[in-house]
């Protein structure tokens, strides 16, 4: 097991290097805004442009720039300096992480709490009106774009913009430590909006897995032993059906910790996702690279954790 974890960590580092290289290459090779021109301002002389390019190290060859960037990350965990905000990218990402964690964790709890029970109920009552209603609803939730759903939620239920002013609206987020009540109120709508598609997807997946698991021999054996149906479903069938869901859940939570760009933007939550969005709008290359790398880090980490948990959940798996 230890050897496996070490191997995966090394692969993770290699993957991060590849991601950083690709991000760097994309912005270097393809048309994107010139940070020097943005920094120099209107009517800047060619000399000023050259001087700023030199200051920012952008006059160096591509491989030199990349080497300096990677060295900074490896030796100092330095993700670079934002041209736009005159602040270290690392500082900005870390200061925004609590908001992103608040959003991702809450949405995760919502989609697990809604998606899995819905899938289980649909699986044990297949082709009933309840099943069709649940799966129909899931289809709608999967199809609804987050941006649209967010605006609908804001115009229906948010203070400041909604018909029913129940919950905090856009820009109402405050840190948990500042005002727990306001924190909760500001996150209710984003949690549900972000969780909607996930919950629907998880419900459909749980249903499919459960139906398959329920036809397994060990379920028939459990029933033959006289176990109550409730115990058969929850302790035997659901546990078996959850293994593949755990894989997806790990990836999803990793993805969201890297920033839920659309949800954070619609609800104006100052998290990593909105930072990524602002950085793209402002062509702030170091910040874009920082957020991409950060997101990749969480996905790789989540993958690793999930693979290790696999062995814990499923006794058949050994590394």
């Amino acid at each position, binding site marked *: 097991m230890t050897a496996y974890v070490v191997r995966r960590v090394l692969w993770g580092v290699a993957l991060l290097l590849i991601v950083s290289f690709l991000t760097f290459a994309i912005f270097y090779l393809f*048309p*994107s*805004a*010139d940070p*020097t*021109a*943005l*920094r*120099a*301002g*209107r*009517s*800047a*002389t*060619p*000399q*000023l*442009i050259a*001087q*700023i390019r030199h*200051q920012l190290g952008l006059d160096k060859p591509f491989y030199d720039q990349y080497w300096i960037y990677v060295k900074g990350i490896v030796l100092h965990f330095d993700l670079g300096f*934002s041209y*736009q*905000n*005159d*602040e270290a990218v690392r500082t*900005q990402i870390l*200061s925004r992480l609590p908001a992103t964690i608040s959003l991702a964790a809450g949405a995760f709890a919502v989609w697990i709490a809604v998606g899995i029970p819905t899938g289980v109920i649909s699986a044990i009552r297949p082709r009933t009106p309840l099943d069709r209603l649940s799966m129909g609803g899931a289809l709608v939730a999967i199809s609804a774009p987050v941006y649209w759903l967010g*605006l609908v939620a*804001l*115009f229906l239920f948010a*203070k*400041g*913009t909604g018909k029913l002013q129940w919950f905090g*609206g*856009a*820009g109402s987020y405050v840190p948990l430590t500042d005002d727990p009540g306001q924190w909760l109120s500001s996150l209710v709508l984003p949690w549900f909006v972000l969780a909607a598609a996930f919950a629907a997807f998880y419900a459909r997946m749980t249903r499919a897995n459960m139906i398959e698991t329920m036809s397994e021999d060990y379920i028939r054996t459990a029933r033959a032993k006289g176990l109550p149906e409730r115990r058969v479903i929850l302790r035997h069938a659901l546990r078996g059906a959850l293994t593949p869901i755990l894989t997806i859940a790990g990836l999803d939570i990793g993805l969201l910790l890297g920033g839920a760009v659309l949800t954070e*933007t*619609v609800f*104006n939550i*100052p998290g990593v996702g*909105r*930072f990524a*969005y*602002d950085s*793209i*709008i*402002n*062509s702030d290359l170091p910040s874009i690279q920082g957020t991409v790398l950060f997101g990749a880090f969480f996905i790789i980490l989540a993958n690793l954790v999930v693979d290790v948990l696999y062995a814990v959940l499923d006794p058949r798996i050994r590394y």
Partner: protein
Amino acid sequence: MRPALAAGIAALALAAAGCGGSGSLKSGSSGSAQKGGTITVLSAGDVDQIDPGQMYYSFSYEIGYATQRPLFAYKPDSVDTVPDLAVAKPVVSKDGKTFTVKLRRGVRFSPPVNRPVTSADVKYAIERGFASSVANGYVTTYFDDLVGAPKQATSGVPGIPGIQTPDKHTIVFKLKRPSGVFQGALGMLITAPVPPEYARQFDSKTTSDYGTHQVATGPYMIQNSSAGKLTGYQPGRRILLVRNPNWNPSTSWRPAFADQIVFREGFQDPTVLTRVILNGDADANGDTTPPPAELRSITGKPSEKDQLTFTLEGGARYISLNTAKPPFDNKFVRMAVAYALDRNALRLTRGGPIDGRIATHFIDPSFSDKGFVQAGGSGFDPFATPDHSGDLRKAREMLQKAGFANGKYSGPGLTQVADNTPPGSDTARVVASNLARIGMRVRTISVTHATMFTRFCNVPKQEPNICPNVGWIADFHEPQALLDATFNGKNIVPVNNSNWPQLNDPRINALMARAETIVDPQQRFAAWARIDQLVTKTAVAIPWLWETFPTLFSSNVTKVPELWNLGAPDVTFMEATG
């Protein structure tokens, strides 16, 4: 203000409303003035720069003018500057080459500097703009006539002999030649004092971080720590202005009603932003305006329409044609485009008549008798077509003159680089379809707004045939600030070029060189009006919209009809009433 009108800005025609709406504008001496409270302004993005020596765009000026005192500044209901840190208008020598400005006494820096402002602080503020660590983007445009001004950015803060400080409250600017725009430039934030003994430690770095350690002279300051580090600036999230304890109201015409002002950033959806303000949860819009649909809704409701104010029609949006390569090096081909374009359809891409009048030349109506009237006002339109909807017959005549016998363009395909989001992308689509009617096949490269400028339209070597999403608003009300950077051949630069058509007409260049030095205002305005007409007739760029900008106020504050700065409200005049 400023190049490249921001995408997504909508506006309302003003003509019938009377310039600026009907909001109340209270001065500091108003008997009903109500001090206290918090004003909240919503914006989509952040300031372009936080350092007053670098600030340029309108949202930054909204904050800069509340916290800093340049020599001259604008009251909200005027497009002309009045003395702010200065006591009176500058005394200009007969030869137009020396400007003497007296400074107010009793103005002090905010903590941690705390000392009185002197003329040396103004001198340093301008000089640091030339340093590469600050790299102000406009000093080389407006201050390069100063005697001894560096031709390029310097590694440290340079001493400029043309800025003299004979005493603590007098500053003298010596120019190499008379300048018509210098006085206007003294209203820009680069003239706001900076204490050298405090700022040098930040300015000496590769990139100055004085911005995040700045001190204030205005009624407000960005909240900071006792050491001077800004704590009220969270990029992309919030800017918090609190009262400057060292501000002396008797030295200023700003009423500064509110106790604090919060700029909440990140409101990317203009409809949400509009609704939040209408609901009273915030007080005004900052860098983003209500979208056209919301504007139409608001103006249709008696209960809400009084919450809107509008700027004068300022600046022009235009379609730029690259004259540096075929086919637009041919005047008749350009004129064919001018006739073929449906300017009504172009205006509809930004909201229609609600957005402003169709532009027919470059000096806009907000200049009034400072060049607009002299240029023929709305009556001057060398490419007039019925209802501004295009005239294909005339377009074909022009193409025949250009050598296309059947009146249809048959040359190589053309390229335009445009915004990848509406309304800019819609404008580009209209251009492509309009030009297809005269045989021009236009390929559109869609990129982000910043990429469009910094990689294509602002870089002559990379410039496409057409840049459909460009425009210009003057930094201040001098026609030179509108026409010089955009059409003077001497201003074509390899990067960040604003002369998008790359117009380099010796006759126009010579007229501009002469107009720049005319000291008499009336003669100067007339000279630039003539230049405006000549440039328009070359058809190197086709103006299609004189745009107005709305500001929405909540019912909890007094309206401040801001006529300049794209309508970004002057928070020092806003009074919390709710």
